């Protein structure tokens, strides 16, 4: 082919207005500060929740089944915080990989995201089943006074979970198709990378 159009394109390509670097730098510094404050706020909220759970744990009588539930809550908060930090780290770490690897990683992440949500629903189902069995045991085995006290507390606890379960269900309905769409888009772009 003639080299002329290529050289003209090159000239046109580089004939772009200069970038206001100071302005760009200011925007980046603002974003960095916001991200830093957001991460600090997130850790603070987790610490507050942990402190509250520790206080509740201390307030509950030794040997009470509630202690096991509170411990589960503490484990859940710690695990979510670690997961959030790992996700953020992973997102940023991927920036210097090759474009094709980045797309493969995106596909894997989207698939893992869907698997994680399915796993969460399975664990939720297990928790509900265990809770139901426990509730049945309380109803069938304990004397009337103890049964009434514990069963009432369990009913309140179960009811409190209903809005959370509905919210998680709605979020799943919104997020899973989004993850699947992202996976398909990444597959399409990966194919596009090799298309001639």
């Amino acid at each position, binding site marked *: *082919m003639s080299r002329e*159009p*290529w050289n003209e*394109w*090159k000239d*046109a*390509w*580089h*004939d*772009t*207005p*200069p*970038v206001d*670097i100071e302005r*760009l*730098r200011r*925007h*980046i510094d603002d*974003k*960095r500060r916001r991200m830093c404050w957001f991460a600090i706020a997130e850790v603070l909220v987790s610490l507050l929740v942990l402190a509250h759970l520790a206080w509740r744990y201390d307030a509950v009588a030794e040997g009470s089944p509630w202690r096991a539930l509170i411990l589960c809550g503490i484990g859940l908060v710690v695990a979510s915080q670690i997961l959030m930090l790992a996700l953020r780290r992973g997102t*940023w*770490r*991927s*920036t*210097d*990989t*090759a*474009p*094709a*690897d*980045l*797309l493969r990683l*995106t596909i894997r992440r989207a698939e893992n995201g869907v698997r994680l949500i399915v796993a969460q629903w399975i664990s939720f189902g297990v928790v509900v089943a265990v809770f139901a069995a426990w509730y049945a045991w309380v109803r069938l085995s304990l004397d009337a006074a103890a049964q009434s006290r514990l069963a009432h507390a369990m009913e309140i606890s179960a009811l409190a979970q209903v809005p959370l379960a509905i919210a998680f269900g709605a979020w799943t309905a919104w997020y899973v198709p989004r993850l699947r*769409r*992202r996976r398909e*888009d*990444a597959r399409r*772009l990966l194919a*596009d*990378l*090799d*298309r*001639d």
Partner: protein
Amino acid sequence: MSRAAREQLFDEALRSHAGLVARIARTYEADAARCEELRQDIALALWRALPAFRGEASLATFVARIAHNRGVDHMLARQRDPGGAALAEDYPDPLPEPVQRVEAGERQARLFAAVRELPLGMRQVVTLALEGFSNVEIAGVLDIEANAVDARLSRARRRLRDLLGEPS
């Protein structure tokens, strides 16, 4: 890498390669406001990625890789045709004469729009070639073979010529 060294390298990268970042961003986004956001995202990603820079390749190729990766992320986030909104460009032009300014601006807008029409693999190769990277450097940025760069670039040029209506 110490914080001061990182900040210094970041400043150097921005001062030397802000134009490269801006042009790559423009091959992923036609809308000026979104393109500006993408430029900021790329710069932020660059700052995050700098500790991984070992100096084995040039800073320019490192910046180019980050910019392309963020561009791909941007395409995924928008979940739409990457060539869309091609006519929405609104960039100031540096030339003094009004007629020249309009002509040069139009020529440039057509070129960027045509580059955005290319399949992703061709687009990345042609962008880097227009930036002046050698085929070996392009192969390094995209992690592909140098002969694949040759083949892809030659097809991309033909496709660009068709898109721009240039004679063969």
